[in-house]
């Protein structure tokens, strides 16, 4: 009986995730290849943004743990 219940939950979860997360996977595939023409300037700017955001997230984590 419990096995049957778990199995039913599993099936329902699979259906739910395919229906909803499938859309996310589809979006990821649709936009997998960036359309912008990548030159050195664009590459450097995106690298700067990544580093900048990492720094900000680092600061946020530091603040969070120092408050604990």
């Amino acid at each position, binding site marked *: 009986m419990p096995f049957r219940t778990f199995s039913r939950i599993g099936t329902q979860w699979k259906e739910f995730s395919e229906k909803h997360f499938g*859309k996310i996977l589809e*979006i990821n595939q649709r936009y997998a290849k960036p359309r912008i*023409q990548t030159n050195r300037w664009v590459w450097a700017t995106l690298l700067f943004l990544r580093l900048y955001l990492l720094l900000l997230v680092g600061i946020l984590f530091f603040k969070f743990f120092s408050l604990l």
Partner: protein
Amino acid sequence: MNLFSKLFYKYRRMSKVVRLYLLISGPGIIVMLADNDAGGITTYTATGARFGYGLIWFLVLLGPAAYFVQEMTVRLGAVTKRGHAEAIFDAFGSFWGWFSLLDLVLVNWLTLITEFIGMTAALAIFGIPAWLTVLLVCLVMSFMVLRGRYWAWEKLAFLFCALNVIYIPAAFLVHPSVSDVLKNGMIPHFPGGFSSEMFFFLMANIGTTIAPWMVFFQQSAVVDKGLQEKDIPWGKFDTFMGSMFTVLVAIFCVVVTGTLLSGVNIQSAAEAAILLMHVNASLGTLLAIGLFNAGFLGAICISLASSWAFGEVFGWAHSLNHKVREAPWFYACYFITLLTAGGVVLIPHAPLVLITLFVQVIAVTLLPAALVFLLLLLNDRSIMGEYRNSLFQNIVSGTIILGLIVLSTLYGVSALFPSLFPA
């Protein structure tokens, strides 16, 4: 042709121009006046109360900065026919797309809570309980979007925009000395010297003038309104008019509190309204109504910005021209954002101060990304064609964006670590 014929011809030509402008105007004026939201009005009233007219020159400088950033969204929307979220996904891929979308939704939701805080505080002055304010706001906002026409929504939004200029007559009621305003306000200086408090106020004023949601909102509104490439000059003029109005409202707001509450340290616009009630009841009432309207105007734009962004990315029908049954997810997203944000304000002992701090910090993470993406998109020949940025536009926008990134980062850090900045 006699004189009367010439005058009649000129009148007909002018009236055609005005009608055409009225047809195309909207996104620019609405986004710029909505920028003077509850947080904005709080910042301006506090600035006036703390520094008098001393920082008016700084507000004047922020007008062109806001214009140069926002006019890029007009061109991008009119050329690509895509909202900003979708444009980021398309141009930079899903990693940056998800980052921008989720950050936008979070910061919008938190900002919406601050709008509700402002609206409930404003109506509390008249003895209206918070739950009734939230209920009324949700009902009016539902009525606005459920008409199924972008035009109907825009006309109603214009009505609230007109109320936003209530601070202009309010400033005349306090009879400020024009020579004092010009002498103390228009000459660049830092009253009392440059301190950490001054820096915090400057940053708060920048933060309320240029916000991430504005970039997303205006581009989506341009697309929903159906502006074409040929409409770009009018869209830019609309944005220019909006930036003029937003600065004017900010200046007059500073004049009101700078005249009557100079030197008083106030924490919110509602507090300023209560203090002004004792000096001049009608003025305090005007300020309270203005604060409510500012929160409302901010709320109607911010909640739509999130729904548009989700709709664009997930491919749902996402226009105000659709009925609820035609765009159920778009409206579901709108109402979920609205109701949950309103609900938070009603929670007893909700950490509203913490939420306000979070808005500042999270907006700082999104603003540089949104502005950098905007600049890169506007320079891409394959996307923008002949409408890409000129060298002059790149120099001006690049300088503004670089300045904003540096200052907003310092603002975010100062919000997290106030002790780092000596008094």
